């Protein structure tokens, strides 16, 4: 069992260079697919093993912690690994056509190699129990995502990628500085060891500085309002496949690290008396309102969804900021639910983009009549984004509102409801344009004459509907994410409070 966990990182580490060396686009896709299949299977087995509360420890190279690097897998990071691996798998199946179309033939194997490196980085961040190792994985995933975003078709993609590189590196360097302060205070890099001996050095002013640097660094990575400025452009300009994958996983993993740091590195008894929970609530609430407001005003579907991501991240931050068990469960479950919902929506947006070469709503009036399946996916996944009962989005918002009421924080509960109404507005904006306007004659944009065939994309459409079905499945059968979240939260609060 222990060996399986490290395979999650080792497999992509081996397959990525192989993909880069074998310069063949079909083989590259096949290797990526096989890798993702293996990772999805492994992560599923690991989650099944730890969901009831068992914890797997794996010592790299046989060095005992706290000296060696240790992988610690409990139900929380197994859930994150499952999100990453399964979304990667479905994205690879979905994206074979879109990657062929958007990426130059000579670069496609490098594209897949970089894609595997992002998966590697995100899985590593999820699994490691060593805080410096986490920084290294964070940089692996970030560097490869900068490269992937820069492969977007338009030249704006380059600027988006450069801005992301600036913000991302600044965030990672802040994180590194925070680790430095923490190491200076504690003399160890093992997260469990830091938490265990926290009382010995918690009185040092250094520790607060460390906490703030780590928090700001992670908030930049997770695009928490007001540090989100890199996100909308990066997601809009990236190739379809990259947008689908990054939008549903990368910020979620950063939120996971935030949760892990705030509960198992710094005990929550340490920071709950500070201004910090208030700040998290404020930034979460403002993020929800601002993201939703900006989403309503967008005309490009991709940018609209990107701003909606900023808003949805606000829900997770609020869940952490409430600092009670229900809030944390809501944050973790929302992490899971939002990942599948956003994957479905960005897949639908990608389908529109591939078929009509635009996601500009003004050019998509009445598209619902000519492409009912693609637009149908928008409508169904949109329900989950709003949080209609019976969909995945409802479950987490319900828990979040309950958590806010439990704390007696009516302002937060009200803000969540207002943001949900705003979500109805921006989802309705898409639906209205697609179904109730027009009927303009649909045109394929930016193509020479004689090529105006709207391509059918059966595989990609199927993948999109798989994600839509997942949204509904986890709206009705909530066992897996809820059980994992429950187990995780029990552990998080016992380590935080018990010290």
């Amino acid at each position, binding site marked *: 069992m222990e060996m399986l966990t490290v395979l999650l990182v080792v497999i992509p580490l081996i397959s990525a260079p192989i993909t880069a060396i074998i310069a063949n686009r079909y083989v590259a896709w096949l290797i990526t697919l096989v890798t993702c299949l293996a990772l999805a299977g492994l992560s599923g087995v690991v989650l099944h093993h730890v969901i009831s509360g068992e914890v797997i420890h794996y010592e790299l190279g046989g060095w005992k912690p706290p000296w060696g690097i240790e992988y610690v897998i409990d139900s929380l990071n197994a859930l994150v690994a499952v999100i990453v691996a399964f979304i990667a798998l479905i994205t690879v199946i979905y994206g074979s056509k879109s990657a062929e179309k958007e990426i130059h033939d000579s670069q496609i194997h490098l594209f897949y190699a970089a894609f595997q490196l992002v998966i590697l980085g995100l899985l590593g961040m999820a699994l490691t129990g060593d805080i*410096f190792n986490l*920084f*290294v994985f964070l*940089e692996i995933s970030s*560097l490869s995502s*900068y*490269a992937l975003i*820069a492969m977007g078709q338009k*030249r*704006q993609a*380059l*600027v988006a*990628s*450069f801005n992301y*590189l*600036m913000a991302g*590196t*600044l965030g*990672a*360097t802040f994180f*590194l*500085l925070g680790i*430095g302060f923490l*190491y*200076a205070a504690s003399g160890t*890099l093992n997260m469990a060891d830091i938490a265990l001996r926290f009382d010995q050095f918690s009185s040092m*002013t250094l520790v607060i500085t460390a906490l703030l640097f780590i928090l700001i660094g992670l908030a930049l990575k997770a695009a928490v309002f007001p540090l989100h400025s890199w996100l909308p452009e990066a997601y*809009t300009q990236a190739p379809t496949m990259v947008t689908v994958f990054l939008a549903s996983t990368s910020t979620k993993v950063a939120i996971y690290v935030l949760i892990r740091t705030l509960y198992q590195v710094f005990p929550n008894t340490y920071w709950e008396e500070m201004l910090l929970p208030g700040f998290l609530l404020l930034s979460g609430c403002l993020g929800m309102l601002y993201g939703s407001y900006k989403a309503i005003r967008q*005309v*490009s579907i*991709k*940018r609209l969804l990107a701003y909606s991501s900023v808003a949805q991240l606000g829900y997770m931050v609020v869940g952490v900021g409430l600092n009670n068990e229900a809030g944390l469960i809501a944050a973790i479950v929302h992490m899971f639910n939002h990942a599948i919902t956003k994957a479905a929506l960005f897949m639908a947006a990608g389908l529109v983009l591939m078929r009509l070469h*635009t*996601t*500009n709503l003004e050019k998509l009036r009445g598209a619902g009549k000519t492409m009912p399946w693609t637009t149908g996916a928008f409508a169904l996944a949109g329900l989950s984004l709003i949080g209609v009962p019976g969909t995945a989005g409802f479950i987490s918002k319900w828990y979040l509102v309950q958590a806010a009421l439990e704390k007696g924080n009516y302002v937060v509960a009200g803000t969540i409801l207002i943001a949900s109404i705003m979500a109805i507005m921006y989802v309705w904006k898409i639906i209205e344009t697609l179904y109730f306007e027009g009927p303009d004659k649909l045109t394929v944009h930016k193509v020479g004459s004689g090529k105006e065939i709207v391509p059918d994309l059966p595989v990609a459409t199927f993948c999109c509907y798989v994600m839509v079905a997942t949204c509904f499945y986890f709206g009705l059968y909530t066992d897996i994410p809820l059980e994992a979240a429950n187990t995780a939260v029990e552990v998080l609060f016992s380590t935080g409070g018990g010290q």
Partner: protein
Amino acid sequence: MRNVAAVLHFCTDNPPTMMAYLLGHINYWLIIAVMMVGMFTMMSSPNLMKKLAGLSMFQTAVILFYVSVGKVDGGTAPIVTEAATRYANPLPQVLMLTAIVVGVATMALGFALIIRIRRAYNSMEEDNIHQQMEAEELD
């Protein structure tokens, strides 16, 4: 606020000790200076190349910080010899080897992006690029 008050009180009461405090932490003051220069360049310069240079300085300052933290009074480089009994802490130095590699990779990627941006927009000035971007069709 209490801390600030305490430091101010400390400064006015003990000028010589204050001096010793400032001099004793001279490496940290210099590191903070390098860091702030880097960050300021990154934020203020419209030239992409200078922005990247600022970022590099900022990263370098963190590397210096780690090495400073690992310094032990009277310790030598952490290589086991007969002549020495005290060594600097090797762990921060090892960590920084990794961080340097990460920094190099970031710089390489940044330069590659700048080359492509310059080819695409024929400019490295942020203002100019933004003007061109605004003129483009949105999506």
